């Protein structure tokens, strides 16, 4: 009852808010997320009851939701069809849509206690949606006799552990790597994408000769392109980590000084001044980023783009289908770093799956979740639409059946070389939105790097204080 009243309370505010409708298109198609390897210790794993099946559960209806493109929806449905055929007593209703707005739906559903039984969740959500650090999803340890948690390592599960409870299971790791255009590299005598900022700046200046500085009239070229407005956010994190060895925060405390942050803002300034990346006037405008469909990318005018490994195939597809290029014209490389910095590629678990605390059929839902991660037919049906899995069976089946595309494997190999973990609140909108505002003001020349860095540190700390306040 209390939960219901709380949900009504949230809905009351929603009802009064004058707007509602569209979603803030501030996230890429790829999953979000974040935590640093959590401190909480996962509960001991209960032995899996291999004899139990949903056939014994009688007629059951389960609701499942996810976000993603059509291919992902078709893959889920194909997997569920296999399940439906085996257990005709289980009805699976599905609900899916675009990433934008999906979190809003989940929040409202959780508030009212009407969330689906099984949810595809973003890694960051399980932490952001935990008021006072309390998990709002079913503790998966309670169904570990059905869900085989030994598929994951303890450290994998720790990523989605909230307040000592297992809020979800992660599907795999994800990080941003550079997908680059070999044709543009060859034109400027480069065998591969530049490895250092200095090399990037040098060639970036050459590539941008002749660009219109006030806008892109369809002819501008850049060695590195900002296709989703997150290039700088993720780059700054990488450069800070590479130069200081620290991610953004730990336990609510910012780990960087103003001078350290100012130094990376200076890099952004140099990238813009030399034309290595677009200035804000050369971009299509906030809200209009087209990601892999941007003509800048598809027409081969961008030397490279910083993309999620799980999103690589989308960039490759549009590059080939909408341009005149070939698959072999693309390469994969890590983000260039300042000279002398430690190699690192920032990453975090990609999407995961969580079960509702209010589900009437926790064992059946856990069985379905287990099926998605351990049944060969299901794994084959899911294909690579969720990215590269790291749970034991799913990974083995994916590799044995060549499900993972070569560029994705190459991307994963880069992630594996030098891991830097993106902390769990880095992509929390309470922290990210103020950061994006600062980047915007800096890039428009409204504030200098020192002011930007001061605001960056103080506003991030304020946001962290709010997140971590009891």
């Amino acid at each position, binding site marked *: 009852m209390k939960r219901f009243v709380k949900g009504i309370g949230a809905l009351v505010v929603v009802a*009064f808010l*004058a707007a509602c409708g569209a979603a803030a*298109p*501030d996230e890429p198609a790829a999953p979000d997320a974040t935590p640093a390897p959590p401190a909480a210790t996962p509960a001991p794993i209960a032995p899996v009851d291999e004899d139990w099946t949903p056939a014994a559960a009688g007629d059951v209806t389960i609701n499942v939701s996810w976000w993603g493109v059509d291919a992902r929806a078709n893959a889920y449905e194909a997997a569920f069809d296999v399940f439906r055929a085996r257990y005709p007593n289980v009805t699976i209703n599905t609900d899916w849509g675009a990433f934008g707005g999906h979190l809003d739906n989940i929040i409202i559903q959780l508030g009212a206690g009407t969330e689906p039984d099984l949810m595809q969740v973003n890694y960051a959500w399980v932490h*952001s*949606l935990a008021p006072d650090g309390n998990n709002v999803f079913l503790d998966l340890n309670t169904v570990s006799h059905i869900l085989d948690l030994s598929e994951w390592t303890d450290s994998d599960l720790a990523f989605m552990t909230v307040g000592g409870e297992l809020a979800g299971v992660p599907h795999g790791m994800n990080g941003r790597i550079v997908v680059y255009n070999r044709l543009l590299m060859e034109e400027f005598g480069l065998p591969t994408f530049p490895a250092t900022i200095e090399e990037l700046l040098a060639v970036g200046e050459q590539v941008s000769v002749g660009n219109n500085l006030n806008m892109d009239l369809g002819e501008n070229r850049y060695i590195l392109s900002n296709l989703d407005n997150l290039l700088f956010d993720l780059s700054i994190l990488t450069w800070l980590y590479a130069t200081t060895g620290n991610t953004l925060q730990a336990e609510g405390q910012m780990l960087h000084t103003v001078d350290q942050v100012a130094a990376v803002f200076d890099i952004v300034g140099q990238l813009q001044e030399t034309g290595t990346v677009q200035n804000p006037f050369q971009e299509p*405008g906030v*809200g209009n980023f087209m990601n892999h469909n941007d003509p800048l990318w598809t027409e081969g005018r961008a030397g490279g783009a910083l993309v999620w490994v799980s999103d690589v195939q989308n960039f490759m597809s549009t590059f080939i289908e909408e341009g005149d290029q070939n698959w072999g014209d693309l390469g994969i490389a890590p983000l260039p770093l300042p000279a002398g910095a430690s190699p690192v590629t920032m990453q975090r678990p990609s999407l995961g799956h969580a079960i509702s605390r209010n589900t009437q059929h926790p064992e059946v839902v856990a069985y379905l979740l287990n099926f998605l991660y351990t049944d060969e037919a299901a794994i084959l049906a899911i294909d690579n639409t969720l990215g590269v899995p790291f749970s034991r069976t799913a990974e083995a089946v994916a590799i044995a059946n060549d499900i993972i595309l070569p560029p994705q494997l190459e991307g994963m190999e880069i992630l594996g070389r030098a891991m830097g973990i993106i902390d769990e609140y880095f992509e929390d909108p*309470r922290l990210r939105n103020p950061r994006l505002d600062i980047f915007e003001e800096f890039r428009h020349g409204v504030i200098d790097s020192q002011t930007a860095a001061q605001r960056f540190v103080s506003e991030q700390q304020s946001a962290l204080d709010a997140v971590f306040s009891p």
Partner: protein
Amino acid sequence: MGTGDNAAPGSDKKAAIKRKIKMTAYFLLIPWFIGITVFRIYPMIMNLYYSFTEFHPLGEPSWIGVSNYLEMFTADPVFWPSVVATLRYVLIGTPLVMAAAFFIAFVLNFKLKGVNLFRTAYYIPSILGGNVAVSILWVRMFHPIGPVNTVLGAFGAEPINWFANPSFAPFTLIILSAWQFGSVMLIFLAALQNVSPTLYEAADIDGARKWRQLFAITLPIITPVMLFNSINVLLRHFQEFNAAALITGGGPLNATRFLNLYIYEMAFPSLRLGYAAALTWVLLAGIGVLTAILFVSSRHWVHYND
């Protein structure tokens, strides 16, 4: 006494009938009363309460007094730019929509060939609303190499970077709003058609020219409708959300971060329902002030028949 005796039963009966009618009326009003209490008054009261709390959507609201209001007025770097963006949109967009709607209604009030087709054509954009398809259309129209710059270029103008430039981005949304004047135009058209032709005939006999007739007859007579339209358009502009969310995302540099969009951003992505609730009261206050100004000023420019 006898008369009184005779009259009493009749008046009692009338009173009873009146009472019955009243009771029936109240009874019929019950669903409305329940509806407005549950869906309007209660949410408003609760929203006011939440505006004094810190409220994570999945947590419990905790009372923080006027901290939300203090924060927005003194510490929030986005609030004031958002207020400025909203007021700019309202104060430019409202007169523009009114002028465009009246002008087109005035023209379409003439007996022109195919006038019904034009009326329909001008009304269609307002049916479309601020949806995704219209947003995509607008993004393409105002793209640096889109049709708008192409047309401007034909007149020798330099291309404009509409969405990336904070000086121009708000105007793309204002123009979108002005383009969707159909409903307002239709109301103006109805008002214009209600102006008695005899007034124009009398003015013709007196030798008044068309412009004189417009300002001395037409406009004064339709001022009540102008007031009605002004308030509607004003409210619509204050509540704008879709266009900013779908086309500009509030940028660049908060130039199109209207209060309604900011409220949404605070409520959902930022998980601050209490702060969002406080913002809605500021928005309501803004709407109230400007609406009051319109009403008060209407004594001087609105002419009722009585």
